[in-house]
């Protein structure tokens, strides 16, 4: 192993592959730490950026996601041993959502699994997984590579995103949701995203990032293309009902306290656990969790009033505390006050009536507590057919 001299270790947050362009566009100067990278929270205003997701097209740098490539004849078997779903059902050139658990059946992380070929996968997720995947690979004929800082990712989301690609000379008209394709040498496009809307994710070598950005940018003016930060995406992903690691569940490898882990059943992903595919990590524990029943339920809530309910406690009959909001925002598109919340079982499942959220409001210097009614929703707050139409419409 070669060691680089210490002087080359960057101090503080480091620029990602698109940083030069993002920096030039950043009026707000709002940056956050995402896996050590300088990532925009907001470039202009969160409202403009949010409405661009829903009405135009947006670019968001997702390069700080962790990316791992698993290659080898036993790659399907090795991945199947890690994740709870059966990856044999994810065909070549397809992407699947996947969850993986520790030996106690507690979620380590969720992510997207790209089946590049029969024997080649890329796992894309929030948490660092390299050591874990190396452990998982022991005894399997596979190679695991950490591509986190060699593969750049750019998320192009919004109703005109297809048109932007088309004008940039990238024809993906026949790509269905969750399709994956190498459209040009070293440029992979997947029809995936975190907004619940029409959108694509583009994957390229780190050093090819700026050229691709410029190419899309040149094609995008006509289609209202904007660069966005995390704040806008945060609203869109709650509208789409997607959970986020560290907010809506605690990745169990990062949790120090007992009983902070959650099973896929408790997060509403029981259908993603395939007990018939053979052994996978945590299977035995998950079998007993299935029989024992969920301890909590992660649910989508419609909350009364208009004040975002982030972190609010949830009560049954306004008296008994039964849970709390994990992500809450005002949805500008649905015009509803929406949230994801964790409720103690059986609330959120068999008991959904007479639930209340405790909201604090500051009325010109005087704090007031309001109990507002809460409704458990089964469907995402944002659903639009354009997200699934193939070929997609122009806008």
């Amino acid at each position, binding site marked *: 192993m070669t060691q680089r001299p210490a002087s080359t270790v960057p101090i503080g947050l480091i620029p990602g592959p698109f940083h030069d362009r993002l920096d030039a566009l950043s009026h707000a100067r709002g940056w956050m730490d995402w896996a050590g990278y300088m990532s925009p929270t907001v470039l202009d205003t969160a409202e403009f950026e949010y409405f661009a997701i829903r009405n135009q097209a947006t670019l968001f740098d997702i390069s700080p996601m962790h990316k791992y490539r698993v290659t080898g004849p036993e790659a399907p*078997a090795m991945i199947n*041993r*890690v994740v709870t779903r059966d990856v044999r059902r994810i065909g070549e050139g397809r992407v699947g959502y996947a969850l993986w658990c520790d030996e106690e059946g507690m979620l380590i992380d969720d992510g997207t699994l790209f089946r590049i070929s029969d024997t080649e996968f890329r796992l894309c997720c929030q948490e660092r997984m390299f050591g874990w995947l190396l*452990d998982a690979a022991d005894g*399997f004929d596979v190679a695991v590579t950490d591509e986190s800082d060699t593969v750049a990712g750019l998320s192009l989301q919004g109703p005109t995103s297809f048109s932007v690609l088309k004008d940039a000379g990238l024809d993906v008209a026949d790509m269905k949701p969750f399709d994956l394709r190498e459209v040009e040498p070293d440029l992979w496009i997947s029809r995936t995203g975190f907004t619940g809307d029409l959108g694509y994710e583009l994957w390229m070598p780190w050093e090819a990032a700026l050229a691709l950005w410029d190419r899309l940018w040149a094609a995008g003016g006509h289609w209202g293309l904007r660069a966005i930060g995390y704040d806008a995406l945060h609203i869109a992903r709650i509208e789409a009902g997607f959970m986020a690691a560290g907010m809506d569940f605690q990745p169990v490898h990062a949790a120090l306290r007992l009983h902070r882990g959650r099973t896929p059943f408790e997060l509403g992903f029981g259908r993603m656990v395939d007990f018939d595919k*053979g052994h996978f*990590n*945590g299977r*035995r524990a998950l079998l007993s969790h299935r029989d024992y029943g969920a301890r909590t339920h992660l649910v989508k809530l419609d909350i009364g009033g208009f004040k975002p309910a982030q972190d609010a406690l949830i009560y049954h009959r306004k008296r008994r505390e039964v849970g709390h909001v994990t992500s809450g925002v005002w949805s500008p598109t649905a015009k509803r006050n929406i949230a994801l919340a964790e409720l103690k079982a059986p609330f959120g499942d068999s008991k959904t009536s007479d639930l209340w959220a405790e909201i604090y409001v500051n009325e010109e210097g005087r704090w007031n507590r309001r109990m507002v009614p809460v409704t458990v929703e089964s469907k995402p707050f944002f659903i639009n057919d354009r997200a699934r139409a193939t070929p997609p419409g122009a806008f």
Partner: protein
Amino acid sequence: MSARFDVIVIGAGHNGLTAATVLARKGKRVCVVEKAAQAGGMARMTDFGGGATGPEIAHLLYNLSPAVAKDTGVAFDAQPLPTIALSPDGFHAEIRGGTLRRAEGTLHPDASAFEALDARLVRFAALLGQLSDKPPPTIAEGLASMASLRDLGGLAKLGLNLKRLGRDDMREFLRIVLSNAYDLLLDELPDGPVAGALAADAVRGAFSGPRAPGSVFTLMYRMGQGCDAAWPMGGFGAFEGAATGAGATLRCGTGVASVDVEGDRVQGVTLEDGTVLQAGAVLSSLGAEATMQLAGPAHFDIEATRRLRNMRTKGTAAKLNLVLSDVPDMPGLSDAQKAGRLIVAPSAAHVERAFDPVKYGRASDAPVIEAVMPSLTDPSLCGQGRQVLSAIVSYVPFAPEGGWTPAVRDDLTARAIDTLETYMPGLSGLIIHQTLLTPDDIAAATGAPGGHWHHGEMGIDQVLTVRPVNGLSRYAFGIGGYYLCGASAHPGGNVTGSPGRNAARRLLTDGIPA
């Protein structure tokens, strides 16, 4: 070819045979599969030629649990042997039944200090010993079931017995249980052959010196059922006899290639020659990692495979077997004492120094030796006046720097014989046959990981609820119907049969699917 049994036991060592006996006596159809041509594992006799037979690896019984004897019907005619702490100055000491005297029979100046210490350790060891006949305690399952309540009961009983020791003893127990043998011994005894012998007992087979934390625990473990060593008359064949006598089938000469799993349950095993043996349950007395590998890592959780891979299993004990043309001269020892357990460990500090080189892949310059001549106790072992000298030589690395070349082996043999010759002048002139088994050889011959005495270091991180590893400590080994029954399971090694018996009983409790 295919045959069906209720249970297949992998490995016909004493633990495998014990497990098979317990199950066969309950009417189960049991097949024991052994890779070697002969059963016995580490506890087996070997023919050195010329009418001399002797124990190949293990050469004494310490802790055969009464519970094992009861559940298997194994009966040894065990002749207790005195322990002789050899002193370079010729003033040897004899330890017998918790007492200490000079070899010539006079009072030993440290007798009362030794006896008080020994009595205390035996009392404490009994406390730990009561844990040996059960799976290690757990509180993980809480109050959810009758079985876990019984476990908690066992734990409560341990606490109660600890309380019953009285305040002073309880405090003393808690003070020393995780500490090091060196300090404990030298608090009570001057450093010399007696302290040396006890220090050597504390760490024999271990990858640690007596100054390492946890060596008091291993000393107590050795004393778990009373600390006298014994020679089983006729050898260790009683385990095999009990198993076949109870109706178990013994298949020697072909090892298991894989454990067959379907639907998260074992279906049987496939032998190296392709023979398939079907069974509802499989017990493995191999090392813990090898047991995992036989079924394949894919059937285990990732945490379990990582822990098993990282188990500490570096063996440090080699075995030297000598056939002698006559009883060697041993100045200062009576005939009865010559037949005893002879310890070469001139001081506790000597034992610690002997450990140092093995850390760097070299054998001790001045090895610590436990030698016994079973043919003196059991004349049936040899004809023509010959004697077998069986010696456990510590510390010897599993993988020495540069490998086990003939020169390195010869050097080790010479060093061991040279060390013994201090106490047995003229020994080398009597040798008509010699066999050296390095930890590497022992691993190859028995499958013991690292050639380790206990199939895994008895460190505080690898005993009780974390033996062999966290999450697999109660014999059930992940896959339905798969069990670990060897020394890497609780309570650990030595010729005790306890892991085998406990695993078999666990299987009987869980039930065997038809």
